[in-house]
């Protein structure tokens, strides 16, 4: 209020406040000095400084959104949520980036849902958890490219298809848990899931499936996404379940209709 009153009176009179030149001088000095400081330190310490800022931003986000279950310092709460020390930025990027975390309700497994954080916030959370202890890093965009589709298909059949279905359509596990369908999952999240083993999925580290082979699996899944079933309607690729249901409803339905027509009296 104190500043707005003189502003309006200044406009009327058309004269500058006597303090205006002082303020302008101050702003100019601060801007030059600040810029100078920023430029001179950038060569040696600007990256750690911004990383440090990201980590502390992540820490704040973590304490506000995750610490209720995972505990302050991400040490976990027995019987509620695991410790996140050492899970690495990849695990955070996967769990939060696919909306599985924060969990909406406890259940057999965390469901995928719309993401609750922006990309910057997810990066900050990942940086914070990554700063606690070394763990799998978020894969670079280059490491996800150039995989061989047929190698990927073979590796997928050996390592993934028993749970996720050979066409990546997903499948049931025990006691309400399930392996989710892999259609439309981004390459980064597929890669991160293999490295970190979210929830009941086993870990496939880089010595088991090399980064090149992981890129091949990603390439196979992308091939499945971009090449729809050559056999036409795939009925969810669930095999005998959906195909059997289709036959029961439509084939038996047709037989019933024909039977009624055969025995109906002509008019």
């Amino acid at each position, binding site marked *: 209020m104190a500043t707005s009153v003189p502003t309006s009176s200044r406009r009327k009179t058309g004269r500058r406040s006597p303090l205006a030149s002082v303020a302008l001088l101050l702003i100019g000095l601060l801007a030059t000095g600040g810029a100078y400081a920023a430029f001179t330190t950038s060569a040696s310490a600007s990256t750690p400084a911004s990383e440090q800022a990201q980590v502390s931003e992540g820490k704040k986000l973590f304490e506000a959104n995750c610490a209720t279950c995972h505990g302050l310092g991400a040490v976990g709460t027995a019987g509620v949520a695991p410790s996140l020390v050492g899970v690495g930025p990849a695990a955070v990027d996967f769990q939060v980036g696919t909306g599985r975390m924060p969990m909406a309700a406890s259940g057999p497994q965390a469901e995928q849902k719309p993401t609750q954080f922006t990309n910057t916030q997810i990066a900050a959370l990942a940086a914070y958890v990554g700063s606690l202890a070394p763990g799998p890093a978020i894969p670079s965009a280059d490491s996800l490219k150039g995989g061989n589709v047929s190698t990927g298909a*073979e*590796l997928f059949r*050996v*390592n993934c298809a*028993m*749970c996720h279905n050979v066409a990546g359509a997903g*499948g049931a*596990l*025990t*006691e309400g*848990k399930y*392996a989710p369908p892999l259609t439309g999952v981004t390459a980064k999240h597929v890669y991160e899931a293999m490295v970190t*083993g979210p*929830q*009941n*999925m*086993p*870990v*496939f*580290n880089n*010595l*088991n499936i090399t980064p090149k082979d992981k890129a091949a699996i990603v390439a196979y899944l992308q091939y499945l996404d971009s090449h729809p079933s*050559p*056999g*036409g309607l795939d009925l969810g690729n669930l095999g005998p379940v959906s195909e059997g249901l289709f036959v029961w409803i439509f084939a038996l339905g047709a037989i019933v209709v024909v039977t009624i*027509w*055969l025995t109906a*009296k*002509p*008019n």
Partner: protein
Amino acid sequence: MPVGTAVVLPDSEQIQNPGFPPYRPRVSDLDPKKARSNERRIALLFAASMVGSVFAIVAYIVFPINANDPGSIRLNNLFLGLGIALSLLGIGIAAVHWSKALMEGHDLSEERHMTRGSEATRASAAEVFHLGNKESGFTRRKLVRNTLIASLALWPLPGIIIFRDLGPADQDANDVLRHTMWKAGTRLTKDPNGVPIKASDVTLGSVFHVIPEGLDDREDALEQKAKAAVLLMRLKPEDLHVSKGRENWNYHGIVAYSKICTHVGCPVALYEQQTHHLLCPCHQSQFDITHEAEVIFGPAKRPLPQLPITVDSEGYLVARSDFHEPVGPSFWERDHT
């Protein structure tokens, strides 16, 4: 007095067969115009069938199956199928429509034939047998009859013996089922590329799909893989409940179990790394890896056999020996060594 609880009505009260309902004339009986239009309709359906047959031939030629183009199979099958369906459905629907709309429409009933033949037929059949017996001497010449019966009983035996030896040549089938490729010192390698696995590669929560070293060099690689496939998992050592005599079968929490279900031999590989349960996708048998793969649900009867493992001087995981029991489903001689 009749025995039982059935209610038997006297003849006077029994429900009489009401017979057929009175014949209701159809529109085509009353109106010759309608009959003609039905006739045309039936002819049109037969014509549609002709079109379908020709279309199927044309489609088969126009949409050939090209190698390396799965989409061509779909077009070929789709149009060929549509043509054949039209061709057969046209005939079928036309025939039914013909019989319903134009053919003689009065209800009629046909009596079912008696199952029992007439006395004369039965007597003559018996006579044929008596005559056959008399002429052949079947009951009189007991030696001939008995040798005939014995020879008939024996002739299938060669077939059964041959079936018994359908297994691999110059090997005892029982022995084949009882042993796998694993022996002391065989390295555990990754499926499918055969790269040996170091104990340090197997981090906590990992699962490796394992084949024995040298599998791909075998001529019978698939037969061997069907018995020797193994799932390798690492748990916290304190989570394992190791029974007496198996103390050195795991290596710092790394355990190897046969991947072949003991129920009917599906590959059991749906491992949940938090519950440590292994699920068989075929019939939902569940095995608890923390309790030496004991069955906790489903139709499997026995736990999955454990492969005893250790490391060699270079740090690679190797088998201590073959499995100590036959892998996979039961077989006749399984429990008799």
